[in-house]
């Protein structure tokens, strides 16, 4: 059943959807607010008793809006998008597990945390799933460079944090704008450099307050959602490195992981015992021990002829 082993690494140029989104938001809001300032003749604006140069107000508004939209963009991409993919099934051995919130930056910026990920070195009969439509083939670090499919498990924690961060950031928008404007107004526009500093400080403070709101909201959302780990659908046993595993789910090409084919998300997991080996695993391990093809794993047998 084995076909030719796909070459590891890049197969083309992927698109990072979140990065292009951030650029579009920055360009659009920056362009619109910059244009508003350019066509209005008002130099000083007073709102809620705070008088500041119009540019300071607009810089703070732009920064707060861009930051909040970026936070929401992450949440949308992680939890709301539901991209259409291929209903697929594959099997192999678990080479590694990357849990969500495993770094300080994920805790500090909870909206950027990624779902739990299980890296599976797949049997050679499933290589076509890692290859078709891929811009990148992820491989294990074994001598043969065994292809993997990264399997994401939808995490309530990540989505709770994303929702909480969006709400918290939204609350921070108004406060951020006001605080930013207060700081900017204190500097004033007496000289070119001072005026530039006033604009920058107003924008930075507005953005930071939104991020602080996103942090607080994200941590509350994460705590409310509770912890979850990848586990077998039938027994509930936690997936561990070295497990033989069958995963079923929605297979997509993901810009978040260099354009590799990934399960987003796994909908069904079956465990079949453990390998006697250790990472980095080779595809020859599940090819030999998770047999016969189509029967040793929980995928439907291949249709021949």
């Amino acid at each position, binding site marked *: 059943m084995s076909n030719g082993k796909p070459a590891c690494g890049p197969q083309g140029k992927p698109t*990072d959807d979140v990065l292009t989104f951030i650029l579009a938001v920055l360009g659009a809001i920056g362009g619109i607010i910059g244009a508003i300032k350019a066509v209005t003749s008002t130099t000083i604006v007073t709102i809620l008793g705070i008088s500041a140069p119009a540019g300071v107000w607009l810089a703070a508004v732009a920064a707060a809006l861009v930051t909040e939209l970026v936070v929401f963009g992450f949440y949308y991409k992680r939890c709301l998008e539901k991209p259409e993919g291929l209903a697929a099934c594959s099997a192999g051995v678990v080479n590694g597990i990357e849990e969500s919130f495993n770094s300080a930056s994920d805790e500090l910026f909870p909206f950027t945390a990624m779902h739990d990920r299980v890296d599976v070195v797949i049997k050679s009969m499933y290589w076509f799933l890692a290859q078709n439509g891929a811009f990148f083939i992820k491989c294990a670090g074994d001598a043969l460079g065994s292809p993997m499919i990264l399997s994401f498990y939808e995490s309530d924690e990540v989505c709770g944090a994303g929702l909480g961060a969006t709400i918290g950031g939204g609350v921070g928008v108004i406060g951020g704008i006001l605080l930013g404007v207060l700081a900017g107004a204190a500097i004033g526009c007496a000289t*070119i450099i001072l005026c530039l500093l006033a604009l920058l400080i107003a924008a930075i403070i507005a953005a930071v307050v939104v991020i602080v709101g996103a942090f607080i909201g994200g941590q509350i959302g994460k705590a409310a959602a509770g912890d979850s780990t990848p586990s077998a659908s039938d027994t509930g046993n936690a997936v561990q490195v070295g497990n033989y595993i069958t995963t079923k789910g929605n297979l997509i090409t993901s810009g978040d992981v260099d354009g590799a084919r990934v399960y987003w998300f796994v909908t069904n997991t079956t465990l079949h015992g453990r390998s006697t080996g250790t990472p980095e695993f080779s595809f020859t391990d599940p090819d030999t021990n998770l047999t016969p093809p189509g029967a040793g794993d929980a995928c439907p047998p291949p249709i021949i002829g």
Partner: protein
Amino acid sequence: MKALFALAKAIFGKLPICSLVGAIIGSIAGFFFGMLQSQLTLPVLPMIDVLRIGLLLALLGWLIALLVVGVWLHYGVAAIALQAFINAILTAILTVYANNLIQQPIIATFIGLVIGILIGYILCWYCRKRG
């Protein structure tokens, strides 16, 4: 939201990462310099002011690129720091220089974005050429 992501992908999806980073830095530099121009109704500034303002905006753009691309998008701060720094210096100074000459703050952000794309494209091309 789906349409916004699709639009962003359609416009910027074919660009290399250096261009995307450059465009972020350029649009930030263009936005702030445009705001400054329209707030103070600036005349054409001497080169020394262009350099001062360009360097300040380059520093801001670089830090934002490190935060967004390096930390939030998990590319790694150390992995992009030097390239983003060179990109930021060139893009921000050229953006301020161009906007200072053109004197059209209404399109300052757009000018910065285009300059960032071009500078990033050239840097990516140069890096690929050097292997």
